[in-house]
């Protein structure tokens, strides 16, 4: 056995090496996105145009915000199928608060977020205390939210035309040239990043996903924390709902189905494992951007719609495979 002091020195060197490597890895994670971007820039003169890039960012925003929340649930090894229709329910409720009840803007927006948190809370309670598999708990919530959106709205869109300034929430440009929706997405990502890596919620999400039993044995109240984690995820769903409503200047009760798969795909493409324990917010943001860029680029190139699907499928395989190769080399 070496003397303690040498040991410490050695381990600290190792730690620094590890830290740098991780940073490098995160930077390299952009590679897939950059390649896709470069390709489309060559392929079409319209692609690398600020209006179009703005369009891509805007298209990323709502799914991206949902994906942020889903990242937390997936970090625990769970899955959240309710983000899509849950978002819609939040839109509709925001509509009820603002357009039907005429509540002040701030109250309506906070109300929308609260509904999201409530959805998450119920998911969390079902998963923790009823011990339902997350797939089932959130599938049920997906249906209930879809049904309730229709019931509450009377299957008709709720318009915000008379709610002054609501559409500016997404469309306004606090930073000139950048729609607020995108700004909100980035801000949400920053908050999610800190929450995942620096707060107990995030730490325990990763810990539960890594080994739930061990986490419980270590004295973490796993059930309670799961409820917290799902609730946090729900907050992002709520935010997505508000942004969506603002972007459409209306709450569309029929929307939402299918968004959950897109959100989960963004998370997984970003390198988060569905088995839990490993998750990065930066990855999720990149994953969401990759999805939106691909769709946009293929459209800009006027690839026929039926071929677009085929192309997206193949590119996803290539992007994720490249990512796996890259990691394989680094490990």
């Amino acid at each position, binding site marked *: 056995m070496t003397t303690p002091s040498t040991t410490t020195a050695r381990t600290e060197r*190792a730690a620094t090496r590890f830290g740098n490597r991780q940073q490098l890895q995160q930077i390299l994670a952009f590679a897939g996105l950059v390649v896709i971007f470069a390709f489309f820039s060559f392929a079409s003169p319209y692609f690398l145009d600020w209006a179009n890039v703005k369009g891509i960012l805007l298209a990323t925003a709502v799914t991206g915000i949902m994906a942020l929340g889903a990242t937390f649930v997936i970090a625990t090894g769970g899955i959240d199928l309710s983000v899509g229709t849950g978002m819609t329910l939040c839109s509709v409720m925001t509509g009820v608060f603002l357009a039907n009840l005429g509540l002040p803007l701030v109250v309506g927006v906070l109300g929308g977020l609260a509904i999201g948190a409530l959805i998450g809370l119920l998911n969390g309670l079902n998963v923790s205390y009823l011990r339902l598999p997350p797939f089932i708990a959130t599938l049920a919530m997906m249906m209930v939210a879809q049904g309730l959106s229709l019931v509450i709205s009377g299957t008709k869109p709720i318009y915000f035309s008379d709610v002054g300034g609501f559409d500016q929430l997404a469309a306004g440009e606090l930073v000139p040239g950048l729609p607020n929706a995108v700004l909100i997405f980035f801000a949400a990502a920053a908050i999610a990043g800190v929450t995942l890596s620096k707060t107990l919620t995030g730490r325990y999400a*990763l810990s539960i996903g890594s080994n739930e039993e061990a986490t419980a044995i270590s004295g973490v109240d796993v059930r309670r924390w799961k409820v917290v984690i799902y609730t946090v995820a729900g907050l992002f769903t709520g935010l997505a709902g508000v942004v969506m409503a603002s972007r459409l200047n209306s709450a569309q009760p029929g929307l939402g189905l299918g968004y959950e798969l897109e959100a989960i795909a963004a998370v997984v493409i970003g390198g988060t494992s569905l088995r839990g324990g490993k998750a990065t917010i930066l990855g999720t943001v990149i994953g969401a951007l990759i999805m939106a860029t691909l769709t946009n680029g293929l459209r800009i190139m006027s690839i026929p719609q039926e071929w677009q699907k085929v192309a997206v499928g193949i590119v996803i395989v290539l992007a994720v495979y490249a990512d796996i190769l890259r990691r394989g080399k680094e490990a």
Partner: protein
Amino acid sequence: MSDSPALLRATGVSKSFPGVRALDDVHLDLRHGEVLALVGENGAGKSTLLKLFSGIYRPDEGAMELDGAPMSPSGPRQANELGISVIHQEFHLMPDLTVAQNIFIGREPRRAGLIRDDELVRRAGVLFERLGIPLDPRQPVSHLSVAGQQMVEIAKALSFDARVLIMDEPTAALTETEVDTLFRIVRDFVSPRTGVIYVSHRMDEIKEISDRITVLRDGRYVDTLPTASTATREVIAAMVGRQLETGVRPGAASSGSAPGADGREVVLSVRGLTTRKLLRDVSFELHRGEILGFAGLMGAGRTEVARAVIGADRSTGAVEVQGRAVRIRNPADAVRNGIGYLSEDRKRYGLLLDQDVVRNVMLSALPGMTRAGFVRDADGRRVAAEMVDRLAIRTPSVTQTAKNLSGGNQQKVVLAKWLVRDCDVLIVDEPTRGIDVGAKDEIYGLLTSLAAQGKSIIVISSELPEVLRLADRVVVMCEGRVTGTLVGADATQHDIMELATRFGTDRSLVTTGDSA
């Protein structure tokens, strides 16, 4: 001391699981300032008793006291708060989190709601320095070897301000150097206000570290004996309920002349095995009917040799089986060529934890248990029942789920799987990890008789006595290289240690990255 209340006491505790009475009216007294050894056969109920102290289970009957006050912890956290720290037999670690994050899980220092990871690392560093553990706090636990993980568990337990330290087979994964470190840690820990409960199947360790020994058998309390005045033989007798001959080298292999020398056929020949990480030009030969031992310090590369040979990790070099050059790309190729490997990490590489004994035992031999493409489960049940008898696996039935078995019995199930597969070459990596003294002897007998039947066996073990007792020849490794090969009958622990430390350094507990 005798009139002050015991530090920790259990009186008349019982605990049942479906089909099993794991504890039946058990007593235990831990005095202040002592190390109390807790011994018993596999499945005797040791781990279950300890889980009562840590609040993982509640006793069905009976009571527990801490310093004379009744205690019934509602869970591990409360047990910690009461000053009881437990290192469980099965690791409870989060592989994706770092070492420091694991140690302080549930107790993260925060500022303004944000976790201070730098502070976590600092505290872990201080802890490691105090304990003399060479680990990097920032390393993910998934990068650690089994021994490294064990050290993390130990550090975690000692990171609490504990009065009672409970350790369930902490040395099963450790080599002698780390065992020495651990014993130093234990001795430092013991003071007039603290006490240690120590579970082990290694009698020499118990002799060395403990003050008294409590013996369990079949879930019942047998006796508590003072270590100093009790012979190992008597302890074992109390454990198994009869006299047992141990420590004697079985007759067949002790003839003195190594079979390798008398020109028996070479079954497995490895030349120039090299891996990117560790191994450099490893060569050896294994003969028919031979038991070849592999010795070395932790991280010497023995496990890595085995994994490379069976194709679990990438390597370069030549492998010949029965004189034929073969290319082994994965363990399936290895088994096809008659080479089986029992891993040192039974939980990760050995067991289907949520499946029953039958399915576990059948796994390797499954293709041979089919007729017209259909699996014959009756065969599996029969074979499993046979194995349960042959290896004395303690289980209520062959359909018991593997994770409900005691640690030693799980190990036996993994061994049974390979016995059923009946490979010509069997590589066993720490085959008796967690197995009790009596069963150990039976397994030694079993391995020897397999060799006598013409099977060839490689035994990797960190217990030098085990290697010396079983092996016809011993390959000694250091830092990924073979530093010498000794003839078993003539080898001594001293010879082996000399070769094992040829390059004079010790490697850290880190084994960079898993194979995935």
